[in-house]
């Protein structure tokens, strides 16, 4: 019996492994379909946010076409915010 059992188990494992695609590394949202040429200037956008009281520890352009910041808002709460880079609207926000 073991040979059969082993091959069945092997098949089950293989099927499960194929079925499970790896977790996208903490995938963020999709923010805009507009081409980067129509996006706000990143440096200026960042400066504007700082003028609004955000302390920005990290500013990135994500694979989902967002501007994303990690930092603190003016109340001192830790925030992670995704912005639509074409109009600067907040798409998603996490606070801590």
């Amino acid at each position, binding site marked *: *019996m073991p*040979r059969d059992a*082993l091959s069945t*188990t092997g098949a089950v494992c293989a099927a*499960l*492994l194929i079925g*499970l695609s790896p977790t996208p590394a903490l995938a963020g949202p999709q923010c805009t379909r507009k081409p980067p040429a129509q996006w706000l200037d990143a440096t200026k956008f960042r400066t504007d946010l700082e003028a609004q009281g955000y302390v920005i520890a990290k500013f990135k352009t994500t694979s989902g076409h967002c501007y994303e910041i*990690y930092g603190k808002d003016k109340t001192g709460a830790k925030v*992670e915010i995704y912005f639509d880079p074409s109009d600067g609207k907040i798409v998603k926000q996490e606070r801590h």
Partner: protein
Amino acid sequence: MTASSATAAPDDRIPLVLRLYHGALAASFVGAWALESAWREAHEWLGYTLAGLLLWRLFYGLNGPQALRFTTFIVGPRQLWRYASDLCHGRAALRIGYNPLAGWAIAGHMLLLGALACSGHWLTTDTFWGNDALQSTHASLVDAMWVMIVLHLGGVTLASLRSRRVLPLAMLSGRRYPH
């Protein structure tokens, strides 16, 4: 291959508290995974729940019933190798309780989940807020955990075939079968 003559006494069940722990652990991992982007608060609370469950298991593994103590089911490399080789040759005896591979699988699950909970907590601190390296570590640990779960399901499937019992039922009813 014959079933070991030791059969479980009727009252010798997997304790309800361990079955609840197993269910809660699985639910909090899968829940935390599923809710990561949609509901971050729930993700975090499920992560802390998971950490609490692990701490309980750690305590239980040191002070709980003999069969469920780490010293009972985590065996040395030589015994582990012998069991694996017996298994491959189809001559591993059926037995009640965790087999050596299962014992190490439990340790692997607990270590991965512990690392996940710690890295997850650190990601919420000022120091590591938005830290890329820690974020990808956390994500890789999740992938490793899924691999672990697939191995676990594969092991349970193999053991079920060997024992001709539907072993996952043991985690519901608590009835132990030689496997």
